């Protein structure tokens, strides 16, 4: 925000101020209304009991069962594979979708672009856990369902950021390559791809980092990875094992975030 805007923010006209108050009032009223509706069926005895429950849960969760880690190496390997293969699968489909969605590379703004944009929004609106839920019921439980679920969710994310990068490319560079008599494919290869390549790598690594996080819980619905162990431990109320799994997940997430930050830093 620039300096000139600062006085504007504080000295509003009366009409503006009234509007602002009405806005706040509506917000508060809406909040209270939503609160009422939401907590209609809440059993407050459970809520007031929560501190005791939490203490009880804490007592049962600690100390974590450290020896359980030996059974977690293979699920962890599976989790990493789900995330990485899923990311690759997602990228594979995201690239054509992004080029079809970008207004400067799409073959048709009227027909193809809306379809590509719908694919992006559909993929983005639906969480990978829901995709996993669907896929487990369609192709059965296992790693494959997890990989496809991660892939389907990644298409929208990668394609959205990528098509925005394509739309921001420098027109002059494209014009210059066009002027040499290059074909459409050559223009793509020489003028557009070099410009979006760093963004593309950054987006892919970023999504991989998110996918590591998401793939740790896909097992809750049977789509493989460390979440399967989590589900089993939760079902048998083996809380020390649950804590151990949380520790492993936390470690993995921290490491993947570090790797992703390092790689992105090196690229950009």
């Amino acid at each position, binding site marked *: 925000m620039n300096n000139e805007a600062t006085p504007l923010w504080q000295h509003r006209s009366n009409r503006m101020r009234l509007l602002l108050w009405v806005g706040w009032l509506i917000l508060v009223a809406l909040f209270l209304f939503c609160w009422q509706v*939401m907590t209609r069926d809440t059993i407050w005895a459970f*809520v007031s009991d929560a501190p005791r429950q939490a203490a009880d849960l804490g007592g049962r969760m600690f100390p974590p069962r450290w020896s359980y880690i030996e059974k977690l190496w293979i699920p962890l390997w599976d989790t990493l594979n789900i995330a990485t293969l899923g990311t690759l699968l997602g990228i594979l489909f995201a690239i054509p979708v992004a080029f079809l969605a970008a207004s400067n590379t799409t073959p048709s703004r009227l027909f193809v672009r809306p379809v590509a944009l719908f694919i992006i*929004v559909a993929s983005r609106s639906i969480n990978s856990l829901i995709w996993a839920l669907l896929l487990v019921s369609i192709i059965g439980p296992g790693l494959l369902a997890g990989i496809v679920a991660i892939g389907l969710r990644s298409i929208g994310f990668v394609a959205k950021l990528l098509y925005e990068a394509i739309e921001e490319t420098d027109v002059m560079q494209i014009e210059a390559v066009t002027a040499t008599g290059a074909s459409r494919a050559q223009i793509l290869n020489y003028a557009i791809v070099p410009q979006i390549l760093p963004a593309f790598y950054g987006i892919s690594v970023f999504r991989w980092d998110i996918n590591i996080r998401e793939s740790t819980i896909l097992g809750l619905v049977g789509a493989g990875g460390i979440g399967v162990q989590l589900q089993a431990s939760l079902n048998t109320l083996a809380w020390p094992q649950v804590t151990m799994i949380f520790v492993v997940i936390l470690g993995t997430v921290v490491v993947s975030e570090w790797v992703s930050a390092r790689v992105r830093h090196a690229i950009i």
Partner: protein
Amino acid sequence: MVNSADDSGLLAGSKSGAAYPATFKRPPMFIQRAWLRWVLWTLALVWFVLAISTIEVNWTRVAEGLDRGWRFVKGFLTPDFISRWKDIYAGLVESLTMTFTSTVTGVLLSVPVGIGAARNVAPRFIYYVCRSIVAVSRSLQEIIIAILFVAMFGFGPFAGYLTLSFATIGFLAKLLAEDIEDIDESQTEAIRATGASWLQLINYAVQPQVMPRLIGLSLYRLDINFRESAVIGIVGAGGIGATLNTAIDRYEFDSAGAILLIIILIVMLAEYSSGFVRKWVQ
């Protein structure tokens, strides 16, 4: 000009053109050392083969499932809003109210936490406390938090509300803290020089600079919270996710298709209107 007539002679006479190399190899883009590039590629290939080989696919099960997959596609194209409408409606109301209340709560709480997690305005001790809150909230999946909150507060949207509020704090406080750390130092200095108190400092120097972005981020988070509210129902934290889970478990793909379409529609609507509001704020 480095060049002179004898240079241009090279161009004109093809006989001396042979002095130039006939091949050109593109310089590597990221990794300069050739051996490192080879090692990395080999490792990647080995990993890929290993990873693919550990996927066990029950192909007969997949073949059976294709029929169900086709039914899902058909269900998605001919969604059934009617037969489960009561459940869908109840789930939707829970999701929407949960989303709104948790976003409001999360934003309100993320403001103090965000200010506390900004190195340039917060005292050292508070800075570390707030940073750890942010770190914990960000590194735990919403689903994992939901599992814990359901265990503590019982099933239902209240646990979901707490989950989303907590996740919102981590998301917003981090970005807010980064924004505050990036603000124009000269403006805080100027206000400080007038002898303003700490609260006045926040109000006059910090708030005007970060407010528009905070509004934009809150709207973005509203959108994320709605999408998440569709998921945490799977572990019992209320919302449309529970309805969806049941529909899929019963193989009622046309109802599931209807729910997914509603989710997509609401997300599209939220994105469109938040873009509009953001333009209006700035």
